[in-house]
């Protein structure tokens, strides 16, 4: 295809004009505190730069489109290379996360814990949204239920982390079923709205039931986890990990321990969801996402199938919540806002619905990335938004799209995302 330079220049010029119209007042005028009131400082150069970026950016896109028209297949070399990367990425990532504590400082370890927590939440939500196709905007509710269950049970009955962990998961699963019942008949947008409201109800109850949850002041002094009864205290002392092994007590030991705890929990979530995908229950979830009517005609109990998806997804959310509580040693309703739900959902969607690797990568990019850009303060959200928009243009089905069949007679072929249904709730 011949490249029409004049048409491209005209197109880019129009884009630049539109951008001047848009940015003219937004970027071109800045409010500064004057002696008596705010004064407007004009910044014409900023508008020129913005328009310039749009002009040349548009020109580049047009060049690219002329060079490779839309719909042209990816060159074979590139596809083979990306397949190769995909092949080695999982073991490399696993090796990386297992060895991280050996060379990473405390800051990186802390970030690692955060990323792993969100990865686990993403994997938990992936069961509900990615496999069963039920859009859940209130996943943070289960995270909150897990955190508060652990904090309250541990403080009231003086039980340890490992005893309370299954209980927290169980409570969260019960709440998952409780949410599941009223929303069984709802689909799509309606389901999303009700789940969102459910998340908010849990948060508001936690905020206002002061006698139980201590309201907005939160719960502090939540016990730390132990390794077979060995504590990780800064000062060492009898019964501590450092004392038992005869090494110098160091606060970073606790971080390393916490890191491995969340790594184990996240991998457990991953393992269970990978296993379930190959079992009738997981297949029924995916079938439900593809076509609920056909499921009913085949004798699948849609009610039970949906409820198990909610319950198991919620259970892992509860585990993650209990871990969050024990890591922070302090929880308050502030940590469980709608923003958290939307971040977790963004991770799942960005990773590619139903994809385990994609979810982990998306958590790394979203949580780790937004931490990287902390210095940019408010512009962080701008970059975040830009990344999401780019993502939707370049890879609308998520980072890792398509699905691998759960069973096969011969060789497994990946099923392209175009054939998959995203579910209607």
């Amino acid at each position, binding site marked *: 295809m011949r490249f029409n330079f004049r048409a491209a220049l005209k197109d880019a010029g129009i884009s630049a004009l539109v951008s001047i119209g848009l940015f003219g007042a937004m970027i071109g005028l800045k409010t500064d505190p004057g002696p008596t009131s705010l004064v407007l400082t004009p910044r014409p150069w900023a508008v020129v730069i913005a328009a310039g970026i749009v002009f040349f950016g548009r020109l580049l896109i047009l060049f690219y489109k002329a060079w490779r028209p839309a719909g042209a297949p990816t060159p074979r070399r590139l596809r083979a290379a990306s397949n190769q990367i995909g092949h080695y990425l999982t073991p490399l990532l696993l090796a990386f996360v297992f060895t991280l504590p050996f060379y990473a400082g405390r800051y990186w370890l802390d970030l690692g814990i955060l990323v792993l927590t969100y990865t686990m939440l993403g994997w938990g939500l992936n069961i509900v949204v990615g496999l069963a196709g039920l859009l859940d905007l209130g996943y943070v509710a289960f995270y909150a239920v897990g955190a508060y269950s652990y904090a309250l049970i541990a403080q009231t009955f003086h039980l340890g982390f490992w005893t309370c962990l299954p209980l927290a998961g169980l409570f969260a699963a019960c709440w998952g079923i409780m949410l599941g019942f009223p929303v069984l008949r709802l689909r799509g947008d309606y389901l999303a709205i009700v789940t969102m409201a459910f998340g908010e109800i849990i948060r508001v109850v936690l905020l206002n039931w002061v006698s139980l949850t201590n309201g907005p002041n939160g719960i502090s002094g939540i016990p730390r986890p132990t390794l077979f009864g060995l504590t990780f205290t800064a000062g060492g002392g009898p019964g501590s990990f450092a004392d038992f092994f005869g090494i110098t007590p160091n606060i970073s030991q606790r971080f390393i321990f916490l890191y491995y705890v969340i790594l184990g929990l996240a991998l457990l979530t991953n393992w*269970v969801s990978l*296993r*379930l995908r190959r*079992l*009738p*229950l997981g*297949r*029924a979830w*995916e*079938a439900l996402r*593809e*076509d609920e*009517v*056909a*499921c*009913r*005609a*085949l*004798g*699948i*109990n*849609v009610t*039970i199938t949906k409820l*198990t998806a909610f319950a198991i997804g919620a259970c892992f959310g509860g585990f993650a919540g209990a871990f969050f509580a024990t890591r922070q040693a302090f929880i308050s309703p502030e940590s469980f806002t709608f923003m958290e739900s939307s971040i977790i959902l963004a991770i799942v969607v960005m990773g590619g619905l139903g994809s385990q690797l994609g979810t982990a990568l998306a958590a790394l990019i979203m949580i780790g990335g937004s931490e990287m850009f902390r210095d940019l303060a408010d512009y962080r959200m701008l970059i975040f938004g830009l990344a999401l928009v780019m993502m939707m243009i370049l890879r609308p089905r998520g980072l890792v799209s398509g*699905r691998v*069949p*759960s*069973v*096969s*007679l*011969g*060789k*497994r*072929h990946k*099923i*392209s995302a175009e*054939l*998959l*249904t995203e579910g209607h709730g």
Partner: protein
Amino acid sequence: MASPLLQVSGLTMRFGGLVAIDALDFEARSGEITAVIGPNGAGKTTVFNCITGFYKPTEGQLTLSPPGGRVLSLERMAGHRIAHYARVARTFQNIRLFAGMTVLENLLVAQHNALMPSVARGLLAVFGLGGYRGLERKAIAQAKFWLDAVELTERADDPAGSLPYGAQRRLEIARAMCTNPVMLCLDEPAAGLNPRESDELATLMRRIRDGGPGQPSCSVLLIEHDMGVVMSISDHIVVLDHGRKISDGTPAEVKADPAVIKAYLGEGDEDETPGGDAPVEDVA
């Protein structure tokens, strides 16, 4: 004469003021192919939806008497229980496959209840308990059997959505058969098929009716517009028009019934309406 498998009596379905089916009586006998035909909008698919529990009939009884002496009232059962306990399977007029899953996976989803007798056992299978491996082996053998029967073994690992139209129709039948039904309800299975595919479909339906090694006999209830298929394979035909039964009998009897001819051709002069061996086939 074979014993009645499904007895429909006084079936009425109203949607608000609209009467889709009006006091319908007919029976489908076991080991037979019963066809339900009629002009568009006669209420055929509504009858199917009532039998398979997608609609709750306004009035009337649907009695299923499967071999073994049980008597089930389908009108009181929920949709998934009809497929699971009463073992009535169905296909859809507009194909409803799990497009993003492979052909084999589609057939395994159909065997969900055999593979997962209870939620607890389904969850135990995560840890390799509950005897899941044996169940899965049996399910795959069953799936292979039906893949062979519908000639889709080659494409077992391809996504169902990528199959050509005729293959999707056959897969939907195979999927319904994987639930081990006593009665199979086919909603226009020949729609969109070419003549050769229609012939193959007729052979498949006869095979399903007659049973064979590794496959018990299964009665077929069929909605079809392709009169060639209907007349050649049906043992018994029920003709509906405007929600009422206008004729009922063997293909030859139905073909000769003036009421049927009237419904299909519209009312006209007696002279213009061909009598005797009325060419109902040509009309459809």
